């Protein structure tokens, strides 16, 4: 239960931090912001690895994990690459 309260505190504080950070992003960068946050939400890859790679789990769990790893990896790789591609266009003068 102690852990849960800590996790909840982390969640709430992160929400407030998110509001402070995101409101400072200029409209010009809203599209890269969205693709960039797509990449960040690929952090579910961490959970997906646990499900896919755990030796001794039933086959069905590994298969669900495989789907999760695939989808999360698309988000991570696709999200960061496309964001980088866009931001490089904003950088040059």
């Amino acid at each position, binding site marked *: *239960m102690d852990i849960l309260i800590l*996790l909840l505190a*982390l969640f709430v504080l*992160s929400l407030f931090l*998110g509001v402070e*950070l*995101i409101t400072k*992003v*200029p*409209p*010009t*960068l*809203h599209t890269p*912001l*969205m*693709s*960039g*946050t*797509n*990449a*960040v*939400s*690929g*952090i*579910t*890859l*961490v*959970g997906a*690895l*646990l*499900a*896919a*790679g*755990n030796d001794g789990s039933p086959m*069905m*769990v*590994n298969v*669900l994990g*495989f*789907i*999760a*790893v*695939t*989808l*999360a*990896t*698309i*988000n991570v*790789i696709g*999200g*960061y*690459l*496309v964001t*980088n*591609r*866009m*931001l490089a*266009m904003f*950088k*040059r003068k």
Partner: protein
Amino acid sequence: MNENLVNFIYLIAGVLFILGIKGLTKPKTAVRGNILSALGMLIAVVVTLLNMNTIDYTYVIAGVVVGSIVGSIMALRIQMTSMPQMVALLNGFGGGASLTIALAEYYTKLGTTPASFAELLNPVVADSSAFGPGPEGTIALVAIGMTVLIGALTLTGSLVAFAKLQELMKKSYGLPGGPVGNALFVIAALVAVALVVVNPGNVAAMVAVVVLALLLGLFLVMPIGGADMPVVIALLNSYSGIAAAFAGFILGNTVLIIAGSLVGTSGLILTRIMCVAMNRSLANVLFGKMAASGEIIDADEVYAGKVTSAQPDEVAMLLENAQRVVIVPGYGMAMAQAQHAVRELADAIEAKGAEVQYGIHPVAGRMPGHMNVLLAEAEVPYDNLVEMDRINPTFEDTDVVIVIGANDVTNPMARDVEGSPIYGMPILNVDKAKTVVVIKRSLSPGFAGLPNPLFAMDHTLMVYGDGKKAVVDMTTALNQL
């Protein structure tokens, strides 16, 4: 590995994500921010793999390889005009990942999986203690249920959004009863979640959550039209983050919670910005129609005999003598792939001595910031992309405004005609400029279905035709003057 060390490294990853988003607050630091964020991701993934005791690499490597190939191809091949589709798909995949993680966790803790498809609905004996001691077990089950619910509806909702943006689905379908029908679906899904929490062995209830949420995603997005997609994409972006944060609660994983809540707030803030820019509530975008309140305005009456059309070379003569020109792009510019042509026109105007800026409405295009990315692709300096609030006071000192592919966001009825369906929506006051040039295929109405009195004003010139061709013709004519 020591559990504390792992969590400490997750904290570093979380800090790198935060610094990454902080970098996005300025175009100059944005590339570095993106790299910091990617570094955080790499650290989190590596430490997770190192921390796993017994790893069967088969599925891990297969998933990473397939995902990397698909992700790279998408990212490198996608055209900038199709960015909304790409983000819609990524939202959906994020939701799908959270959905499958939650289901995997559910079956792992349940300790048994169906041996065949026929046994999918068979109940098993289990109670919440399998998911954690005392109240923790119950809370873990709630988190699993909510992750499945949000993840699944984000998955199908995003796929519908993709289909609409790609124009694979042109019509709008909805549940009979609109918001009421959807509310019943939400209630049914929540009841199914409650059944799972009360009796985790009730596998049929879990399957019901999945099915109901998948359908809900379809029904929520199918009735929504193309021009409202900026709101939908931003909202689904938020859902994919919330699902990731809930998945963090299931696994007790700190970095998932930090990253998920950052993404969740980002999507919500963008949703709000889009709604404010349309002067509509979120409920109105999701469930409402832009119903014609008040009397129906007859387009013929607005336009009859008052519309002046012009040829590109006439416009070029105007541009030659202008001191200040503002270009207002809309989704039509993206459709016509005219961003490079527009940049060339701006270069030609500047060569004749005028100042050129771009006026960007927040909901121009199909996603937040869509126009900015297209113009950045065409190498327009970002300082010249001016947001609505800053460009509006300058229109009175502007000689020529060129509107290309935008309609509703320039409609003065939103400002002047009380009782008009779009009354109160902030617009670009292009009609205050000395001359307005509108490049458009015809006088057909925009998404709101309203005639635009701007087109009939004395100082407005309509240039009919394909956006790209009209702009190229203007540039050619201007260069010859």
